């Protein structure tokens, strides 16, 4: 579904991605693991067209997106839940939820989203999105992209800074949306969490993919993984 070949990206003078190669099959949940600064978030942004300069190939459903503007990439059916959630403080919760335009039929209805995240419904009247707790913000950030009908979701560290109980809920959500046929690319530092949701794991180091570990082999690869991640 998503095919990335020799992806390079730069911020100003600094060359962040040095030829990233990986792919995500339809219906899969795939994670990008790696240390801080390895280039995971930059990879996400590069897929979305959010870096100042990128080269290589990002093919989505067979269409090359490398020269496209972010809004066109979004219309093609990729949605991002960014690092630190990207909740808009000047928008109410409902406005945040309704913000991303519908790009295709088949998205979740607002009611379905509320069923998925009951907390959100209670907080729907909250004036400012940033008044929500971290967990609620994360739910909102995921919920709003489920509405758009995009089938490919990029989730950037959805568990960051969250309490274990919330992390569990996020995990359930990801499995749920996988069951509904969504494809997910997940950036995680928390590989134990990743292990509970993902089919495959790519490991990044210095702007490159250095390894791919299928989830079933994860237990056997623990030593390798500790080495990669420095934990």
């Amino acid at each position, binding site marked *: 579904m998503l095919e990335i070949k020799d992806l390079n990206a730069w911020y100003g003078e600094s060359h962040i991605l040095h030829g990233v190669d990986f792919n995500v099959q339809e219906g899969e949940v795939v994670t990008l693991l790696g240390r801080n600064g390895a280039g995971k978030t930059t990879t996400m942004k590069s897929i979305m067209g959010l870096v100042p300069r990128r080269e290589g190939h990002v093919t989505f459903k067979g269409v090359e997106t490398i020269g496209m503007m972010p*809004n066109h990439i*979004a219309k093609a059916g990729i949605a991002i839940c960014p690092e630190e959630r990207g909740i808009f403080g000047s928008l109410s919760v409902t406005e945040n939820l*309704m913000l991303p335009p519908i790009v295709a039929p088949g998205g979740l209805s607002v009611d379905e989203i509320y069923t998925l995240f009951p907390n959100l419904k209670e907080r729907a009247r909250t004036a400012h999105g940033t008044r929500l707790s971290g967990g609620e913000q994360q739910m909102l950030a995921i919920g709003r992209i489920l509405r758009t009908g995009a089938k490919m979701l990029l989730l950037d560290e959805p568990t960051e800074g969250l309490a274990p109980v919330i992390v569990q809920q996020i995990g359930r959500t990801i499995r749920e949306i996988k069951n509904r046929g969504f494809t997910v690319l997940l950036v995680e530092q928390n590989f134990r969490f990743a292990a509970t949701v993902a089919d495959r794991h790519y490991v990044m180091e210095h702007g490159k993919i250095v390894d791919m570990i299928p989830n079933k082999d994860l237990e056997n690869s623990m030593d390798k993984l500790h080495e990669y991640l420095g934990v």
Partner: protein
Amino acid sequence: MIMIFGIPGPLLFGQLLLGLINGAFYAMLSLGLAVIFGMLNIINFAHGALFMMGAFVAWMLLNYVGIGYFPALILAPLIVGAFGIVLEKTIISRLYKLDHLYGLLLTFGLSLVIEGLFRNGYGSSGLPYRIPAALQGAVDLGFMFMPIYRGWVVLAAAVVCLATWAVIEKTTLGATLRAATENAPLVQAFGVNVPRLITLTYGGGIALAAFAGVLAAPIYSVNPNMGTNFINTVFAVVVIGGMGSILGSIVTGFALGVVEGLTKVFYPQASATVVFVVMVIILLTRPRGLFGKAA
């Protein structure tokens, strides 16, 4: 007669009312400026010049095409707004990644060009533009003689300000705008055509200025310098209100009009300077302005 601070009460009420009328212009101009700043991160120094263009376009419509005041009130903002869109597309869009200063300098240059061209073409002693027949005359309010047209200005300005505020605060388009002000790349990544949104915002802000220009045309003569006279004060309004704050610019616009009106009674020479005094005080005590968000 009631005396307040040694000034006859009726006179003081009159001054407050007049302050409000001027405040209406400040509010409309600073509103556009605030919207543009919030969205484009550009301090649009050319705002005064485009305000002036609004008045000139109304004058041209009347004198060259025979289109009167009320149609001009719609047409002139559209025409000048379209000009703004062209400006944004061709010139201003090149500056988004640079420091504020460059936007300020570029639009400053732009205003010099626009004003110079009109001064060359139409001189600077001003062209007459008559109050439309329907709004001529005045009402005696007891404490002052209130021209109907001035009343219309306050009304029109208040409606336009409220409408703009409502669009930004209460509609989906407005929500998208606010979101794009916070984090434009993310909004674009959701599939919104942010560059077009930015262009339209600039056009809209300019149209607001032009609308104010048409409103001003019958009061002040249509003059190439009419924008320059306003622009410094309007900047002060935006800074005091909190840069980019919609509500801040509306409230501060009206409030400063009143402050200025009162100064005209007590120390008229300083009425042009008082806004700067207020601005310095505000900047030193509340760095982000009255309604600005903390950094």
